[in-house]
């Protein structure tokens, strides 16, 4: 039984805890034994993206200390996993560098861990809906992830329909959403219009930031299907 440490992310912890619950259920359905190291906080991505590498490094060191005892670290966020894998080895130096490299190599996004590491696509979930997948940028371009969430959904029986441009950014961009709402909002509109055109019941992705941005915009504009994390869709399909 693979032992997995869950990095739930600060957003999921505080804003969408159901995504964390769903993640645990999926990992357990795949036969994992899940632990949740309670000392965890944030990966530090908002700081690095805001031009504050020192603050980001402090959180990176904390993350490394918390997670280095574990063989596998799994997160329901492609962007946070990408932060660990891509930026930690650049941010930390000296004695911290090999430790950062080691933790980075063992940190995985949820769908990638299930499909690419465990080779497990059918979790026993049953999903009836028509789903369209937004390729969150850092999962796609930093982690090279494209098929894993689709394969999990398809194995559960969901009908996966594609938007015309699933790979274009939704406009979240972390602090970009707060600093340039006048650009970020219209970018969400494009994504939501494309999702609406697919007639999907639900728009999904593997990043809470993108999903809250899209759902928040949908609630404002009334366009597009609900935006829900794929872990929640699949975990609902596990219920007896």
């Amino acid at each position, binding site marked *: 039984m693979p032992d997995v440490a869950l990095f739930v992310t600060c957003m999921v912890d505080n804003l969408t805890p159901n995504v964390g619950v769903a993640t645990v259920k999926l990992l357990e359905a795949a036969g994992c034994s899940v632990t949740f190291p309670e000392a965890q906080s944030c990966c530090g991505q908002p700081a690095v993206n805001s031009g504050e590498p020192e603050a980001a490094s402090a959180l990176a060191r904390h993350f490394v200390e918390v997670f280095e005892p574990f063989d596998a670290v799994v997160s329901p966020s492609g962007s946070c996993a990408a932060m660990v894998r891509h930026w930690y080895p650049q941010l930390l130096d000296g004695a911290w560098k090999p430790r950062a490299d080691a933790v980075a190599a063992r940190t995985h996004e949820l769908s990638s861990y299930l499909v690419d590491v465990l080779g497990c696509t059918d979790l026993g979930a049953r999903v009836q809906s028509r789903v369209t997948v937004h390729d969150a940028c850092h999962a796609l371009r930093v982690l090279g992830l494209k098929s894993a969430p689709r394969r999990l959904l398809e194995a559960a029986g969901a009908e996966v329909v594609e938007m015309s441009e699933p790979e274009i950014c939704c406009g979240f961009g972390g602090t970009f959403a*707060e600093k340039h709402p006048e650009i970020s*909002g219209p970018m969400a509109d494009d994504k939501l219009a494309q999702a609406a055109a697919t007639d999907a019941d639900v728009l999904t992705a593997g990043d809470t930031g993108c999903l809250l941005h899209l759902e928040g915009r949908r609630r404002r504009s009334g366009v597009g299907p609900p935006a829900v994390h794929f872990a929640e869709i699949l975990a609902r399909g596990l219920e007896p």
Partner: protein
Amino acid sequence: MTRLSDRASAAIADENLQTSLRTLTSGLRSIARHVGQDPAVADRRAAATHIRQETVADLDHWVDEAAQSLTATGCTVHHAATRDDAVRIIRGLALQEQVRLVVKGKSMATEEMHLNPALEADGIEVVETDLGEYIVQLAHEPPSHIVGPALHKRLPEITELFSQVAGRQLAEDPQALCTFARVELRDKFLTAGMGITGANFVAADTGTIVLVTNEGNGRMCSSLPRIHVAVVPVEKVVPRLADIPTLVGALVNAATGQPLTTYVSMITGPRRADDVDGPEELHVVFLDHGRRRLVGTKYQPMLACVRCGACLNACPVYAKIGGHAYDSVYSGPMGVVLTPLLSGRPEDDELVEASSLCGACTEACPVGIPLADLIVHLRADLRTRPRDASWPQSTPVPRRRPRGWRWNGWARVWSSPVGYRLSTAAARRGARTLGRGRPWVRRLPGAKGWAAQRDVPVPAARSFRSQWRARQRDPRAWGGLG
């Protein structure tokens, strides 16, 4: 002075511009997707990346070699440390030769130099001959895209501009308008005393200037007038003539999806005794203007840029706001990186925020520039490093003032489990009180930008960690599995 957010809002409210941008970017993005699937393209990009990065790492050497080769072919070589120096050199030449009319090929370097107004102040007529540049010159606007300067212009606007030149109403027909411009420009080519072009590449071993165009205007500018001036930003040198096929292929393919442009001009020296055409004098002005300073810094890879525009076409922010909103010669991701490094204007610093860091630019770049990462680095360096002539440096310099104290304080609190738990509990309680039990609200304090466009999520009643603890106490707490 306007701010980026105001210019972006104005661009997004401009229906005409939005129509142009939609047509442009969806078309160009589909070309990029098509190009991206070709394995031969990936191989060529790797080769092009190698050549460019090799060159910029030893820039002084290759510029020296290029200057020697150019001189050997009969060119006169000038070195301009700043854009003002470059303008001075060209004005001097034009005055000395009593030039009344200059025809220009498309050159972003001369835009950077503000060359046209300087020559016009001397009473010289300057005519842009690239069709897109001709359109924006008539409209008294700067280019909005480094490859397609007038991509923001719609057909009715262009018809109006050309009709003013013609002195009669022209038909709204692209073919007829092109013919009109061709006839107008032909006369200018034949009477101009000086042709000014940029250069896509200069081969250091042979001193060959390479111009890539689809209209043939570069060839006219460089062969018909008596004097040809090529403005060459120093990073345009490449070591060998043999590198040109790889680089031109990578550039053109990334720019337009073509295998090759309609015209590729390779110019080695001015007219020789047995040549039937060509300029009597060929002057090459190497423009530095802050570029050499980047060698050896983390921004060195930016010097590899071949100005193909692929990062603009891929960028979802450019697709929303267009080129003019950047208020800079260079727009899109390459402009976001290059402008604050070269311009010296503090108001350009905020351009680094014009990115969602989605990485589409990095993916699109045919010469391997990690644009998204450079934007992240620049955000940090612009905050903490002094802006003087020595910036940026390869070695860190002391902080100017402790602007990061808020972030550092946050990081300190969140690096402690107790600090994280207490601060998030307080924030969640506060937000829930204001949210009065609703899962989404119209606004919350501290989320002004967010709430301007989106409803705001209210934190959940119980954090994940408290639910995890409940389950540790009672394994059935979550129902179902567990």
